[in-house]
């Protein structure tokens, strides 16, 4: 059972306080998008053994959505950050590079 620090209220929250929300940084495609774009937006997800970016909600706490960068294999957490961003912030990316040189995730590195 994971613990993740909520970047809004600062609580180190137990997984029972949180709700998982799947992969982070999806770009929404709406009307006008191609079949392939929309299909990928709805259904295609990364399933890495290693570095991953996820959405979580502090649902039994402050109620805020946030993002977590973690290693799905070792359970190491590189950092959590607010959800109001379209890509992982630099300090998070640097923290990952320090631990996992040469990592990539989708088109992020």
């Amino acid at each position, binding site marked *: *059972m*994971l*613990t993740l620090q909520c970047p809004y209220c600062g609580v180190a929250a*137990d*997984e029972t306080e949180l709700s998982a*929300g799947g992969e982070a940084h999806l770009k*929404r*495609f*709406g*009307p*006008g*998008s191609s*079949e392939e774009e*929309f299909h990928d937006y*709805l259904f295609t997800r990364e399933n890495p053994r290693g570095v991953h970016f996820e*959405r979580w*909600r502090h*649902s039994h706490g402050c*109620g*805020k*959505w946030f993002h977590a960068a973690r*290693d799905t294999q*070792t*359970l*190491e*957490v590189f950092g959590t950050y607010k*959800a*109001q961003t379209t890509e992982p912030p630099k300090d998070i990316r640097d923290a990952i590079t320090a*631990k996992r040189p040469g990592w990539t995730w989708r088109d992020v590195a």
Partner: protein
Amino acid sequence: MSKRLPTHGRLIDRSKRIGFTFNGKPLAGHPGDTLASALLANDQMMVGRSFKYHRPRGVVASGAEEPNALVNMGQGAQFEPNQRATTTELFDGLVSRSQNHWPSLEFDLGGINKHLSRFLPAGFYYKMFMYPRAFWKHVYEPFIRQSAGLGQAPRDRDGDTYEHFNTFTEVLVIGGGVAGLQAARTAAQSGARVLVMEQTADWGGRAPVDGGTVDGAPVERFIEQTLAELQAMDNVTLRSRCMGAGVYDHGYVLGYERLTDHLPMAEGPRHRLWRVRAKQVITATGAIERPLSFAGNDVPGVMLAAAMRDYVVNYGVAPGQRIVIATNNDDAYRTAICLKEAGLDVLRILDARNSGGGTLMNRARALGIRIDCGRAIAKVGGGKRVKKVQICAQDGVGGALEEIACDAVAMSGGWSPVVHLWSHCGGKLIWDADQAHFRPDPDRPPTGADGAGFVTVAGSANGELSLDAALKDATEAGKSAAVAAGFKPRRGKAPNATATPEAALEPVWLMPREAHVGLRSKSWLDFQNDVKVSDVQLAAREGFESVEHTKRYTTLGMATDQGKLSNINGLAILSDALGQPIPATGTTTFRPPYTPISMGAIGGEARGDVFQPIRRTPMYDWHAAHGADWEPVGQWRRPYAYVQSGETVHDAVMREVTNTRQNLGLLDASTLGKLIVKGPDAGRFLDMLYTNMMSTLKPGRCRYGLMCSENGFLIDDGVVARIDDDTFLCHTTTGGAEHIHAHMEEWLQTEWWDWQVYVANATEQYAQIAVVGPNARKVLEKLGGMDISRDTLPFMAWADGQIGGFDCRVYRISFSGELSYEIAVPASQGLAFWTALHAAGQEFGVMPYGTECLHILRAEKGFIMIGDETDGTVIPQDLGLDWAISKKKDDYLGKRAQARSHMTDPTRWKLVGLQTEDGSVLPDGAYAVAEGRNANGQRNTQGRVTSTYHSPTLGKGIAMGLVLDGPDRMGEVLEFPDTEGKSHSAKIVDPVFFDKDGEKQNV
């Protein structure tokens, strides 16, 4: 025979006798006994029968690893099956019964299975029960049900209570043997908070039995001193009878404390589940001795060598009088010496090693014990207890050289560290060829949030089997855990223990090495699930090469003991059959809990009334006092109907429908979700959430809206009222308030975070009452206070005001097709307002109505219900709701999805009404059949029933359903077979059965 010795028994109190029963037979033991030791003291060597072949089985171990001695314990509300006799402390009045036999333990009909064993090979379920198909229902299934399961399911509700306990600690030590105590002391001396869990009632583990000295004194003295030191430290918590059950992510550990199992009359919870967050975990979980695989190794009286000396030293119980010992290592000689010194006859030690053992062997020989090297047991003779052994050469096929009469056999195949807790959260293992076991790989520990290891292993759990090595290892483990938890350990050396040098073990996976098939098919690996050497070899031959596949095919290690004795032996046999080294085969996955824990402990306090919260509206007590038949809706309780005396529930529902259509009905609608959406961008936001246009709604007006997921499917509906330019009030379904609120928050926080909108869930702030029926306006006008006339408050308008002195908001909306006002008042006024309406309505024929009446009223009008007409695969277009989908908007959640090819497929089933030819009620969920059959041989379908009721208004059954090309097939008759074999004919009709033009609601 097994019996109580006049000497030994360090854990029992011989001055007191306590009574217990086994299969109704009154027996006696002493305080300090386990049920297993007390049974053995009474010569009860056979304690149960095996799962598959119903072979007689006896106690084989002395602790948590015991596979055989499982009993039904207790009676009535205290009854529990599968209790391990070796870990059950004896108490006065204990009632136990053996399991898995019929009619009795001594004479069992299922024992015939053992004569059929060659027809019950590995994987026999998969092989035998396939064909003919018709045999399934009447032959195979009853047979499997008859034989399945160990023990009996309890009949009564569990009479005990349980609790959860949450705690934090810096260092958690699991295991209270010498290594655990030493590691705990070392860690605690750094100042770290330390919690120590020991699964048994006693501290010190095996050391007092195995002997040795520490710093010149007997090891018992070391245990006493260390324990006293720990007890005196404020930063240390010691819990005995508390098992470390599982290690999970980020230092989360479950402990299972058995508080009153040994004190059945004591007050308080029976078990306590410890939910621990630890910075560092030290597992000092010891090691488990492996059995040897020889023919008849499951006959009662064959026991692990170390368990045999446990029974002598701890309980003063001799498992036999004339004993043969088989071993491949030096440790079994400790048993030989112990038995001899207790005055028992050790007839022979069969050491599979040609060169024999070391110092311990010489000591045994000096005591006059005969030792044969390079020898093995070919076969154990005897059915319900050991009678003799045949001796053969270890290097051979099993030709008997000699036969010895004896009544017990001790076996030792070496020791395997208990690596379960290390492995639960991803710790990896390495193969130690010298000791022939897997032990933790310190370079690949389970890792925590910071990426560093959070588990350290100490003592024999780490493969350090001797006392001196274990104490040194534990000292290091305690220091490194303290450092990792952020503390500075005190300098100090490990205590000095004596070490008896031991000769090298020689791996023996089969005894004798080339045992012929007759012996291999009687050599048990997994005692509880009846898996033999020959079964694993068969699995390998049949291509089950992965250890995980072999496990499932043979059921090796799948019993309640999870293969504590069998796993290493089994995978060694598999490796041999596959011609590969053991590490190449690997182990199966270790999963928590370490041993089974009670369901009660997992549930804790969450049972009965506190299992989950019940939400009650302000009028709950009034409903209860007026005959409410409750229906759970989410966590709410809503009246299904108000049953009057002499009525059935169905009668009540029919009366409520008729009265509401003809006079006046009151519905408690407080449970409907009420979400306030406020801000300059509120209109824009709701345009994205609803399929229709909400931003154009005028203040003072209401609009019915549909909400879809991004996948296009309908998820909720309800009436939206615009309060002012910046504020909307969105009604959701009763079950939808929380998740629609969360849905709104998700989109606001993660997609449109720059939009200025707040959402608040005001559901419980208001009580809401629907006043419905031809007399609705009359009762409100009688109470008076505001103008609710047709012109001032037309259909789909709302207004704030006062009625009967209550501040209220009145919505002129209708889910029934009747003249209807939904009136919200502050929750605190709900009951008073309801009571006032009910009193004022008497002259107008008022009656409260429940949810089933609501359903019928809406179905008569063809209104859809989320969860009936929708099931997560239905889009608004399927339900003929195109009118509620804006064509003007560029975008809304679900719009793009609804343009996908499957969503625009003209063959999607569409909503229609259904009416039986004879006026009967269609079965709910029934499918309409079509011509032909599909690839699976099932009838093709062309529609299904989504809602079905008897309409008292129309005097016949009415239904709605989704049908292929339905709206174009009005008047066609479909066939709906039910589950009883009967078919129902129904005609496709308009889904609006009543007042299609809406004349009643618009008056």
